[in-house]
């Protein structure tokens, strides 16, 4: 049976999913492995998913997803903790606010492309950070809104680490499946067309602008959900949560995982979470370590961890085709090209 046959793949998915569900019941020290590693990887993964969705479908790389994370988080924190609302309407409103902010930011940001867009969204995230610091009637300033106790929903007590993990897992899987679904819908196909040849699509009568704004708003929706999950995890929302370091965390998770691969979001988030928790066994300079890993990944593994298999089989196939000593041209052309192809094609168009 071939490794890529549907039966094998479905078995693998089933096993993986089962493992993920059993996970909280079998790990030692669940307070650490379920919470610090499990839930953290899931919500960070959702954030990376938001970034990757946008990149995969529009070719736009955003550093601003935390702004929507923060918009949802602060709305919930403010309404629940400072206004005494119950969670359900606060969460609904938080997500709506995240999406609206996404539509607003999207309506001017998507007019930019490439590296302009990157800087613009970075500025949006920073604006969110400074606003969180300054609008202290709503955000309680530097200290943030703290002491948020996760609620009980439909009999699910989110204070319990395992329940919270399973809820986060369900939501993450749903979002992932939703993104996969969109890939095949006319909307998803149109987006990819817009990404690859906007002029042709425009000629075909597509409203490029509207499509992109909707895509951006959808990414903001995913990010808002990430914000909801994170507020249960952190039990607080503070300006540092939308600060530059966290912005870069999301970027690192997405890029290391594989910036054009939806599952890469969670792989990257998991990898980053592990490094954050265990790096001090190798080094006291955590930022240097992450920085070096990040640079190496961008330079040599542009498809990230998720693309490693494809990248290496690519090398293999290429070497196989040319069993004779390769010419210099081919080495240079293909050596970089095999891995870099997708990332660079995207961003130079």
């Amino acid at each position, binding site marked *: 049976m071939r490794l890529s046959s549907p039966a094998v793949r479905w078995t693998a998915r089933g096993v993986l999913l089962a493992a993920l569900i059993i996970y909280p019941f079998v790990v030692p020290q669940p307070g650490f492995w379920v919470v610090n590693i499990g839930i953290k990887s899931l919500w960070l993964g959702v954030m990376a998913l938001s970034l990757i969705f946008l990149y995969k479908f529009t070719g736009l*790389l955003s550093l601003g997803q935390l702004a929507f994370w923060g918009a949802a988080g602060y709305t919930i924190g403010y309404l629940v903790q400072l206004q005494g609302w119950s969670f359900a309407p606060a969460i609904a409103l938080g997500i709506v606010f995240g999406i609206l902010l996404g539509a607003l930011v999207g309506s*001017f940001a998507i*007019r*930019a*492309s*490439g*590296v*302009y867009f*990157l*800087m*613009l969204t*970075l*500025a*949006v995230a*920073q*604006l969110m950070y*400074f*606003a969180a*610091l*300054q609008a202290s009637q709503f955000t309680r300033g530097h200290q943030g809104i703290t002491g948020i106790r996760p609620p009980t929903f439909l009999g699910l007590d989110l204070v319990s680490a395992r329940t919270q993990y399973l809820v986060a897992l369900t939501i993450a899987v749903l979002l992932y499946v939703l993104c996969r679904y969109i890939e095949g819908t006319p909307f998803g196909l149109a987006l990819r067309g817009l990404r690859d040849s906007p002029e042709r699509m425009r000629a075909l009568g597509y409203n490029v602008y509207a499509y992109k704004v909707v895509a951006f708003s959808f990414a903001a929706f995913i990010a808002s959900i990430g914000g909801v999950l994170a507020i249960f995890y952190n039990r607080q929302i503070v300006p540092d949560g939308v600060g*530059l370091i966290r912005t*870069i965390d999301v*970027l690192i998770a997405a*890029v290391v995982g594989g910036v054009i691969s939806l599952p890469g979001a969670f792989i990257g988030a998991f990898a980053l979470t592990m490094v954050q928790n265990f790096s001090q066994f190798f080094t006291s*300079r*955590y*930022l*240097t370590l*992450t*920085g*070096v890993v*990040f*640079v190496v990944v*961008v*330079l040599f593994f*542009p498809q990230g961890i998720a693309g490693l298999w494809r990248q290496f089989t690519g090398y293999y196939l290429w070497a196989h085709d040319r069993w004779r000593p390769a010419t210099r041209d081919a080495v240079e052309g293909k050596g*970089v090209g095999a891995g*870099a192809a997708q*990332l*660079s094609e*995207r*961003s*130079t168009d």
Partner: protein
Amino acid sequence: MRQFFTVGLNGLTLAGLYFLVASGLTLIFGLMRIVNLAHGTLYLLGGYVAWTVIRATDSFMLGALVAALLIGVVGLVLHQGLLRTIERDDMRVALVTIGVSLIGADQMLAYFGGVAHSIPTPEPLRTAVPVPLLGINYPAYRLTIVGIAVAVGIGLWLLLSRTRFGMIVRAGVDDREMVSASGINIRLVFVAVFLLGAALAGLSGAIGGAAFSLAPGVDMQFLLFSLVVIIVGGMGSVGGAALGAVLVAMVSNYALAYASSFAAVLVFGLMITVLAVRPQGILGKVAV
């Protein structure tokens, strides 16, 4: 009224520094269409280098010179070592330089620690000089920054508009392939421009380090403000950087004087307003 003008003068001097930092960034972008997000790191490193040299030799000029040269070389190494193979891919360049800025910030913290470092202002500039019309005394060093910024601005303008090198750069901005095809080694021009841009960051570090202290976080602060400056002014345009610097510095200073808590928010608000109205920046060309 006097206060109003003093604040304006403060804005102008801050604008001088912002322009110095942002000019290097916009120069590199203008020709190569890449953004060096480690630019703030180069600024801070330049400041630390100048601080070290000045402490050892007591010469401000020497410190500034060494900072400019050394950071130019650091930029060169960065470009040749990491960015050369990917310089056609603006996104990956941005990502790699983000990684470099993380590493740089961490290493500078390890080496220079968290304590603020200040470069002593050069002795003859430590006085306050009377400003005509306003009837106030103003620190000579701050006025000197404006002078340097104007000089650098004019220098860059002359370089770009009056020399063969500038001609190649301007042609390269418009059409890289055509320049290459006409037998000019555009690679060499890239190297020179990257070196010049980095050197400007190093020089600004030395100059800025004597006005504002050098400490962890300053790298990101100056990177962000330079980005805002060139986004507002129009990326790739030296004139735009000057205009952007003045606008940003004015907004931040008047905000500090009259609504101090909102300074940072207003600066980013300015940027978003400009973008909403004119996405390519005030003096920017339409993005390709």
